């Protein structure tokens, strides 16, 4: 079949950087899917994106749709003639003889086959383009002029070639029509006039000649290369910042790095302030010297090769940065005038959550929870309580007002300057950690205590008044919060969450008395939160690649476990069953042989065989031996369980395999003697019971 390639470029007003990568992928997928729906299965597709263009290239699209047969369901057999006639006329058929009567699960219906002549792809494309663009969703979209089409920013023109030829048609914006044209344009400033590529090769080449690096990956690489080289020229290194690099890639079509200076007077500011100020407001890259110390320089990436070599751009940017940093320095000096504690006065005016009181009240609760946690860890609670009491004060500082992302960090600096201990200061800095599974934990016990008290307080409060994540909606990031809790709980020396939740819940008492919201009971809350935590834990292990049936097996027996113990169970089970030796298979075989028959007999007898084996009823050598080995292992298994060493019991039971096989070879379980039979079932049940203390192996599949 003859195929051809399609180039479609949407020239756009500037697309927000953060949306570009997803849009390129989504647009490509949507377009290919739409073609496939029309019977046009295509070859490789790529979508490149810059701030101003979405550029799709699809190879090997058939130039013509196949002729096809579509089947249409008509009325029920025996339907009134009027309905039959309507159906026939809608299908263009003359007679019911051309239709087929077929039974479906809803009854017997008439079906008509229609032969549809395939169209030229070039004729189909304008509709495809309109449908895909109209159906595409951006995180945020807008309308412009008198048009109705929602899109990220106004579309200015479209360049489209199929099979190296113009596609005749328009994009209908709702009022204006954008022709599918055969010209495009280069860089906004560096070049002017229309470009007329004749194929994809010349399209790419013309754009490059006209100062557009179309491929986001190359553009990113070029920026990284450029800023690295510029830094090296001054014997400096770029402070790594992948997020900023991504953002800048989406801000320029023709990146040109330039080198600027920071006035030495600003270098007294904390490093985080300087970096945040440069990054958030200005998108500058910070530089460091060979010792890793922040250097009084920055690199900016401009979008043009300036006529004057960059003089004006550098002067301008340095001026802006000076103004920004003067503000920051002013804030820093103002903030330092009073101790951190006094900044916190404003917390009684700041709302934590509409129905849950103020930040000052939250802080009080955090102090109580911190005390509880410190006592659980058998530590003097003074430091943790102090850190908790000061933790939110920096939210009221000028600096955090200006740069919310510096929360915690500024608290650290102001606490240290105010003479707080390093431990307290560091705990304030670390209170928002860990942000997810990858992030590091707070450095000290005090830090972990304060971080946990913050997170638990939020979760307990929100859940108590019924604010929970639903589906994809989690506006308060409670899922991430729960993950933080889980990771922190793992460091809390086997702390059971019930006690922690109870402490947090009771700390809310004054709020719950006056809130307008409906508050659930403590036991409801514990149930809800336990389930929520378990869901998060499962998600965590699943993401790490643990099979879901292994997780079901562990969670079936982990009801009373501290989270760290659950983790140990999961890891032990996963590594045992996935090990390269045969132990996993041996264990499962042993378990199944032993448990299947017990399960079946239990069901038949409507009873369980979990009670003790009667040694005096052991008749056969093989069963005596099996029981002997099991009994001998019991003591070591007991110790293993207490130490949460879950590998050993599995190993011991895997090694029972030959004895179990021998047992089944030599011993008849369903003996005629009722007592012997029951005792043998109890022996097998003992194997099952022992293993069930590690995980419920009946949940494991295949």
């Amino acid at each position, binding site marked *: 079949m003859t195929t051809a390639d399609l180039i479609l470029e949407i020239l756009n007003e500037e697309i927000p950087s953060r949306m570009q990568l997803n849009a390129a992928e989504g647009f490509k997928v949507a377009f290919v899917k739409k073609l496939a729906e029309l019977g046009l299965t295509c070859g490789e597709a790529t979508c490149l994106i810059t701030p101003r263009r979405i550029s799709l290239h699809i190879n090997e699209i058939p130039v013509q749709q196949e002729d096809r047969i579509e089947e249409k369901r008509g009325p029920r057999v025996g339907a009134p003639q009027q309905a039959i006639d309507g159906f026939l006329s809608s299908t263009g058929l003359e007679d019911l003889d051309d239709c087929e009567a077929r039974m479906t699960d809803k009854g017997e219906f008439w079906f008509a086959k229609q032969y549809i002549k395939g169209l030229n792809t070039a004729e189909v494309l304008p509709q495809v383009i309109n449908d895909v663009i109209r159906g595409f969703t951006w995180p945020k979209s807008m309308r412009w002029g008198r048009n109705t089409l929602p899109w990220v920013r*106004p579309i200015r023109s479209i360049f489209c070639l199929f099979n190296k030829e113009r596609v005749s048609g328009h994009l209908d914006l709702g009022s204006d029509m954008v022709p599918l044209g055969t010209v495009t344009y280069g860089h906004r400033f560096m070049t002017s006039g229309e470009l007329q590529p004749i194929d994809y090769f010349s399209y790419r080449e013309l754009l490059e000649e006209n100062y557009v690096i179309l491929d986001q990956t190359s553009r990113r690489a070029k920026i990284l290369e450029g800023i690295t080289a510029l830094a090296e020229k001054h014997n400096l290194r770029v402070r790594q910042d992948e997020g900023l690099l991504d953002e800048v890639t989406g801000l320029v079509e023709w990146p040109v790095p330039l080198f600027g200076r920071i006035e030495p007077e600003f270098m007294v500011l904390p490093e985080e302030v300087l970096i945040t100020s440069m990054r958030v407001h200005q998108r500058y890259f910070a530089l460091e010297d060979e010792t890793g110390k922040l250097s009084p320089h920055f690199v900016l990436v401009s979008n043009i090769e300036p006529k004057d070599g960059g003089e004006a751009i550098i002067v301008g940017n340095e001026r802006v940065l000076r103004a920004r940093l003067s503000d920051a320095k002013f804030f820093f000096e103002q903030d330092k005038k009073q101790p951190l504690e006094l900044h916190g006065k404003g917390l009684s005016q700041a709302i934590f959550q509409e129905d849950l009181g103020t930040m000052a009240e939250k802080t009080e609760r955090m102090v109580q929870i911190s005390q509880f946690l410190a006592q659980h860890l058998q530590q003097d609670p003074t430091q943790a309580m102090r850190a908790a009491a000061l933790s939110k004060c920096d939210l009221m500082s000028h600096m955090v007002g200006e740069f919310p992302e510096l929360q915690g960090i500024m608290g650290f600096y102001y606490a240290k300057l105010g003479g707080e201990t390093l431990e307290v200061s560091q705990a304030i800095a670390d209170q928002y950690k860990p942000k997810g599974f990858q992030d590091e934990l707070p450095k000290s016990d005090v830090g972990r205590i304060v971080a946990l008290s913050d997170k638990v307080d939020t979760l307990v409060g929100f859940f108590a008044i019924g604010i929970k994540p639903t589906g994809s909606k989690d506006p308060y990031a409670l899922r991430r919060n729960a993950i933080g809790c889980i990771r922190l709980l793992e460091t809390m020396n086997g702390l059971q969450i019930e006690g922690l939740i109870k402490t947090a819940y009771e700390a809310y008492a004054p709020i719950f008395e006056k809130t307008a919201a409906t508050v659930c009971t403590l036991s409801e809350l514990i149930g809800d939160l336990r389930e929520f935590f378990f869901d998060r834990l499962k998600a965590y292990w699943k993401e790490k690649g643990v099979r879901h049936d292994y997780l079901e097996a562990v969670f079936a027996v982990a009801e009373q476990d501290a989270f760290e113990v659950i983790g140990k169970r999961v890891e032990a089970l996963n590594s045992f069953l996935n090990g390269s030796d045969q132990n996993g298979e041996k264990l499962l075989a042993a378990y199944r042989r032993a448990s299947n028959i017990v399960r079946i007999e239990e069901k038949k007898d409507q009873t369980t065989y979990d009670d003790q084996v009667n040694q005096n009823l052991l008749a056969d050598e093989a069963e005596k031996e099996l029981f002997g080995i099991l009994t001998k292992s019991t003591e070591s298994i007991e110790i293993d369980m207490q130490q949460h060493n879950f590998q050993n019991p599995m190993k011991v039971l895997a090694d029972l395999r030959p004895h179990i096989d021998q047992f089944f070879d030599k011993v008849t379980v369903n003996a005629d003697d009722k007592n012997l039979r029951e005792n043998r079932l109890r022996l097998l049940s003992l194997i099952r019971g022992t293993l069930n203390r590690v995980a419920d192996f009946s949940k494991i599949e295949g």
Partner: protein
Amino acid sequence: MRSLSFQEVIFRLQKFWGDQGCVLLQPYDVEVGAGTFHPATVLRALGPNPWSACFVQPSRRPKDGRYGENPNRLHQHHQFQVILKPSPLNVQELYLDSLRALDIDPMVHDIRFVEDDWESPTLGASGLGWEVWCDGQEVTQFTYFQQIAGYELSPVSAELTYGLERLVMPIQNKENVYDLDWNGATGEKAMTYGDVFRRSEREFSGYSFEFATTDLLMQHFMDAEKECMKLVEAKLALPAYDQCIKASHLFNLMDARGVVSVMERPSFIARVRALAKACCTVYLEQL
């Protein structure tokens, strides 16, 4: 070559946009926080009728006052406001031409359109667009209005708001707003921004941070609210709207004076928004 004076920048922008068919208006004579509040923006953006206008709007932000001592922050700054309805297809090109009219050469200066969506909770208004950067300085807010007072707009207006101080500082290469050359004159006629406005900055900072009588502000606020609703009843959209922006400014004054707690803020904003909504509704009814 002498750089453009502050007033020359205004002249050129007025000429440029006047030549594009904009109605050249004068600043609105009620205190507002931004050019958007000018009825020529908010009200004219409603409904189907085309409208293009430009004007300078002194914009009062009591909270930003610094007694004339901060080189960048002002209680009153100046916006050059352009409203184009419906937004023309070449609006970005027109905007760039307006920069060229100010001798800003986009081959020397790095001009960038950086995502910045605009929202005014007091007006119940929002739009999408960018902040326009010139060499890292935000010089213009560029917005496609989508909603005002909760009404979806059709056609959509483009609003270009040049921050004149921010724009002129790099043009004149000045670090301090008070050093800006206002009129380009020499000798005793030479006037800087400081000569023109420093005293007003100092005195209004004193007023908004120290001397404004808060009970009176609250009383005025409630009076304006009441009057607004009465005028809405009488279907007098424009006078009603004056009371709405008065209420908004009074709220800003109370806020600067530190008597609006964080908890009360949302409810004040909601009250002003309710007024704006009522005015816009009447305005639309009477179109």
